[in-house]
């Protein structure tokens, strides 16, 4: 087995991983960085983000506003001290990206432009047309090329962490092109492997978003926090789940039911006005909008299509010119994938799974409870999203906490003692053996595609927009069964070169573990909060019992153990989450009272 000795190894080269790598490289050029990614960095799913990234810039805006929007948006399940740090760092990180070349959209005077986004009181979403994630990712990737100390392992699949002497000390990776293993030794490991949306059926995520890092950390005893909170995005393409960005609504798009009625006004988000108003109607938060869809569907007011019920995203009144300028990619998506010209016809949309709020438990400095292991980005739970993430906070998170994770890992790596290489190698060889056994065994009978399909259908029915104890229980039982069946999986492809059959099997193993953590965390949260909404007697938020983070602990072949951790409240006490006119009223009262 080949061995590469690094100071810091970063798994994942999406926005978070790249930002971390650059932070390490800038902090000390002598540190050797290994940057591992199962796809070429620019293929990472950050590339798909459309709408924008948050950062306070306008003079009538403030960190306090951004803080309040984030904490209330997260239904008070946020670590408020971490949110404070986050909102204060966002603008600087956005400017940093600007200096690195990110083509932010501009105002006529040359300053960066910002747009409105769901749940945000004031426009503070930086954007690069409707390809913000794409531009951020390419900017970060291309900038990372400047640093010779970053050694990339592109198309290398991380099979496991190497934990020795109670510390994360490296990773074992598979070179996809050859199927050969490499041990990367390091003083610290950063996980930046992204979300896990693919455990659901209809989702906005790329094929690679399979929760690998979450599962790896989890299997090594690091709890997964708040996994029951999975965000549905209200405006996705039926069937494929592809996303129509929230910016469609930020620019003034309407959501209409089958009667052409802006139904959101019936769900506490009104009044309906022709111009977009922040935190009202179509610019309400995603959980509320997805829930409203569900209710409309129950009332039979959605439009029935071949790929499920839909409502209409109406952009016609914006006109072709504005659409082409502000939402060019959306225009093309609708046109090419659906054959719908959004300037002439409303786009059929429905909610789909979009984002995993929970993730690897880390503190405000991105350190997990396992010494030497750090996490950043969607795979982590640093505590800023709570029970529901606000759009555009995630891209900003990648930069703010990618940097923190990199710096902290670098500092840790410098100080940490290293175990003997031979010990680490022995571990890596054990990983290799175990991973290869998936392929070499000949007695498996379970098909990967079948297991995956059953898992996704289970998650959709058990952990959807609204949840019930019995369907959640059924989902938990089914996932137990699927995990058992997975141990009997069959891999047809026995070759070494680019064996995606093998990699898909490993990913499925990761996904099943993550799905199980989600389902059990959901079942145990007996209240409704943010993206976790129940209809079985627990319709209300229950701060007395559940103003706390859930923690899922890995338990081998058995079910995960769920317990709870405290939520850091500094100055914002839980209150009613109100939007639209009601929200404004509540805010006024709070200010005067």
């Amino acid at each position, binding site marked *: 087995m080949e061995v590469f000795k690094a100071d810091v190894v970063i798994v994942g080269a999406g926005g978070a991983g790249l930002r971390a790598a650059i932070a390490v490289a800038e902090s000390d050029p002598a540190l050797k960085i290994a940057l591992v990614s199962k*796809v*070429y960095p*620019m*293929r*990472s*799913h950050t*590339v*798909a983000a459309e709408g924008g990234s948050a950062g306070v810039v306008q003079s009538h805006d403030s960190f306090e506003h951004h803080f309040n929007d984030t904490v209330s948006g997260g239904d008070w399940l946020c670590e408020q001290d971490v949110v404070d740090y986050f909102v204060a760092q966002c603008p*600087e990180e956005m*400017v*940093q990206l*600007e*200096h*690195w*070349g990110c*083509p*932010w*959209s*501009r*105002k*006529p*005077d*040359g*300053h*960066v432009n910002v747009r409105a986004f769901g749940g945000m009181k004031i426009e503070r979403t930086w954007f690069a047309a409707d*390809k913000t994630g*794409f*531009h951020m990712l*390419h900017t970060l990737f*291309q*900038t990372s*090329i*400047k640093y010779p100390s970053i050694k990339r392992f*592109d198309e290398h699949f991380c099979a496991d962490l190497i934990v020795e002497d109670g510390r994360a000390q490296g990773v074992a990776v598979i070179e996809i*092109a050859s199927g050969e293993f490499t041990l990367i030794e390091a003083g610290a490991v950063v996980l930046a492997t992204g979300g896990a949306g693919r455990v659901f059926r209809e989702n906005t995520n*790329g*094929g*690679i978003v399979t929760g690998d890092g979450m599962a790896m950390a989890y299997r090594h005893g690091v709890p997964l926090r708040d996994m029951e909170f999975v965000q549905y995005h209200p405006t996705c393409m039926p*069937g*494929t789940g*592809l*996303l129509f960005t929230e910016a469609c609504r930020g620019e003034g798009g309407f959501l209409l039911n089958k009667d052409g009625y802006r139904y959101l006004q019936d769900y506490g988000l009104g009044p309906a006005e022709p111009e977009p108003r922040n935190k009202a109607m179509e610019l309400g938060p995603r959980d509320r909008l997805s829930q409203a869809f569900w209710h409309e569907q129950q009332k039979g007011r959605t439009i029935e299509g071949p*790929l499920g019920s839909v409502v209409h995203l109406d952009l016609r009144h914006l006109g072709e010119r504005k659409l082409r300028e502000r939402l060019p*990619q959306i225009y*093309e*998506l609708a046109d*090419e*994938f659906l054959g719908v010209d959004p300037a002439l016809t409303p786009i059929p949309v429905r909610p789909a799974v979009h984002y995993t709020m929970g993730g690897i438990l880390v503190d405000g400095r991105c350190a997990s409870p396992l010494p030497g292991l750090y996490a950043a980005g969607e795979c982590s739970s640093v505590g800023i999203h709570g029970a529901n993430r606000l759009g555009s906070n995630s891209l900003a998170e990648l930069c703010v906490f990618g940097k923190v994770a990199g710096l902290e890992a670098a500092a840790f790596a410098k100080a940490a003692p290293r175990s003997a290489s031979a010990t680490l190698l022995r571990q890596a060889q054990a990983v290799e053996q175990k991973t290869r056994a998936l392929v070499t065994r000949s007695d498996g009978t379970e098909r*990967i*595609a079948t297991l995956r399909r059953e898992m996704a259908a289970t998650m959709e029915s058990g952990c959807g927009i609204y949840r019930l104890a019995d369907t959640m229980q059924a989902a938990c039982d089914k996932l137990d069964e699927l995990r058992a069946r997975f141990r009997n999986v069959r*891999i*047809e*492809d026995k*070759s*070494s*070169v*680019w*064996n*995606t*059959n093998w990699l898909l099997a490993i990913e499925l193993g990761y996904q099943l573990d993550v799905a199980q953590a989600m389902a059990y965390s959901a079942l145990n949260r007996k209240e409704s909060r943010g993206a976790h909404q129940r209809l079985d007697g627990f319709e209300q938020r229950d701060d007395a019992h559940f103003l706390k983070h859930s923690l899922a602990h890995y338990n081998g072949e058995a079910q995960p153990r769920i317990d709870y951790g405290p939520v850091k409240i500094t100055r914002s006490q839980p209150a009613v989450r109100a939007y639209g006119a009601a929200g404004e009223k509540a805010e006024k009262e709070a200010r005067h009272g």
Partner: protein
Amino acid sequence: MARTITMEVLRYRPEQDAEPVLQTYELPFTDDMSVLQALLHIKDELDETLSFRWSCRMAICGSCGMMINGKPALSCKTFLRDLYPGPVRVEALNHFPIERDLVVVMEDFIDKLERIQPYIIPKAPRTLAQGEYLQTPAELEKYEQFSSCINCLLCYAACPQYGLNPDFVGPGALALLHRYNADSRDGGAAQRMELVAAEEGVFNCTAVGYCSEVCPKHVDPANAVNQNKTTAARDYFLSFLMPKGGKK
């Protein structure tokens, strides 16, 4: 009755095939199916051993480029309805060595990307405290189109000059090089000129133009390459007028 469509996929498994061979699959056809979805169907239901790259499904990650009926295209935004009744032939991207099945070796491109210095070399350095550089929408427009390259390599598969001479830096990387040169914040054009004007640089291009024809993101790489011929030529002749350090 459910309709079906035939796909002919170029297979190459280095551990068992001496050279690529076509394999035929018959699968159910629906109106909304992309070529990528068809391949995923094959992989899930018919043949687990077929390998190909994909991820985003929405024409932005650049993974899924392949030859579809002889033309370079993104499989996730090529729809079977436009190719019905088929058969549809799918092959690995031209001009790159095939690693396996539809997967090509793309290290050469990555290597070129690294050589074009694809990052801002500041004209006037600025600290974070000074805030953002000012850039008007008109200045943004000068390079924006070239910055939307998704590195899908379709243009390389389209460019015969790259096929004939793999040393040629090629359309995609040169478009990105031009993207930085054309950015009002950047002052690195002179530094990048060495590669533009080198033997592996822009003059390999004979203005075939097919690169821009197939580009799924309207980058127009042919334009970037050819604009730089003019710049390189100017620089070349100026270097005679001002022999030492004449580069400006």
